[in-house]
């Protein structure tokens, strides 16, 4: 078996092989599983089950996706530390169950966790280890001490 390797098109050789295998295996997969279902006395195609669990928590699920989107979107606008503190608190609030929602103590702890965790990580990695973190308008620079808190 030979495959003609042309320099300018060789970047497609392996993807095409992979796609080919995917199609063949895909057909095989459907056939085998379908046959097994027929054998078990069901239809060839499985009835599509419900995508989500029964009574899934709509607020938490969609909320977490939206919140994550907003978090990433704001990261390099606000700056890492402040943005993370805000969103960590929001996540903590989102994930709270009903009972927790009503207890002020839960939210106080949320604030403490958010502030402490974000500051520790930001100072440890951003300031001490000098890893570049997202910066925005809340990024603090103290040039005299060559200090930066993202």
């Amino acid at each position: 078996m030979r495959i003609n390797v042309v320099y300018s098109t060789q970047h497609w050789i392996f993807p095409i092989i992979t796609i080919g295998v995917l199609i063949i295996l895909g057909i095989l997969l459907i056939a085998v599983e379908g046959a097994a279902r027929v054998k078990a006395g069901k239809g060839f195609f499985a009835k599509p089950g419900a995508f989500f669990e029964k009574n899934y928590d709509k607020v938490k699920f969609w909320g977490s996706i939206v919140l994550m989107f907003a978090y990433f979107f704001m990261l390099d606008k606000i700056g890492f530390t402040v943005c993370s503190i805000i969103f960590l608190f929001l996540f903590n609030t989102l994930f709270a169950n009903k009972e927790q929602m009503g207890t002020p103590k839960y939210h106080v702890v949320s604030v403490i966790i958010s502030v402490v965790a974000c500051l520790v990580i930001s100072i440890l990695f951003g300031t001490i280890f000098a890893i570049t973190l997202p910066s925005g308008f809340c990024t603090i620079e103290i040039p005299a001490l060559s200090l930066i808190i993202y």
Partner: protein
Amino acid sequence: MKFKKLIALLLSASMAVGLLAGCGNTSSGNSETPSGEQSGEVNNASGESSLKGKRVRVVIGSTSTGGDSYMIADMVTRYLGEEMGFNGKVDAVGNAQALDAISKADGDGTTIMMFHDMAFLSVLFGAVGEEYALENLTVGPRIGVNPGGCFAANASVPYNSLAEAAQWLADNPSETLHVNIESGSASHLCFVVWYMWAKETYGDDVASRIKAIVGGTTDEKKQRLWDGNADIIYADYSSCVEFTKEGVDAQLAMKIFDTCGQVADESIISMVEDGITFNGEPFDFNKDFFMLFPKDMDEGILNEITAAMQKVCENPDFQAEMANLMYAAVTAEEADLQASRDYINAKRETSNAIVAVAPGLDELT
């Protein structure tokens, strides 16, 4: 008892972290002190530097933090930061990403791209889009040279230079030479120049027996040399020189020839000395490092950076540190803004001319 142990460990760990913070500070302090009192003066002198106290992000076109791009950028950033009083950080983000970052950056000097010829070669060879052509950016001062691009072969081969290799092909009509290069880089240019020279000098038959193997890091190329899949590789002088020394296992031993620039090692022939020509002109191609800025770069800041760079170029510590890694510093005149631009543009023209007449890699592989 166990709990005590735990506390002791935790304490020592936290001490370690404390120590680290200390180290971090002292080291940054140290890097400022090698020049002793001088650095104090410099800091005073550059008191009005627009970048003083700012954080400067230096992006480079390589993703490796061990290669020449990182080493040179890091050194320049340290010395330049000292000179101008900014706090620099080199981020190895890769070529396309670095070009993208610099073209979108603010023109206030807080983002600098430092890279070599690949910055314009990648546009020339179409690896990145035209929007990153030098016209759409601002070329800054040159910062250094890695003269070490060279060709290497197993020590046992009968030829000692590219010219001899072509001659050897002419003498042995059944032989072929596989040369490992990278596409869209200095190695690509040097290779096609040799190829065209061989074609001109020895004719099509010899040229047709020169084959390119494209791709791979320096390490992968070396392995191809060792496992016999490549006869000649293009590599960096500093990464191969150890293998040319006495006492190296025969399977690993290499010979180096035809450096594309001029290395300090006199015993190694350069492409110019080897008589390889392009359009009748001797051909050399150093790996030149320079700065790039966004198109709407602030002139005043750019001039400050250039002036500081020229100062750094004259700093003996900097020159020594560069030489230690087998790189060469440029002179203050060469780092001049206009001189740098003329130089880089001229180099791009040469590269353009070569690419225009060179056969494509479809034909050469």
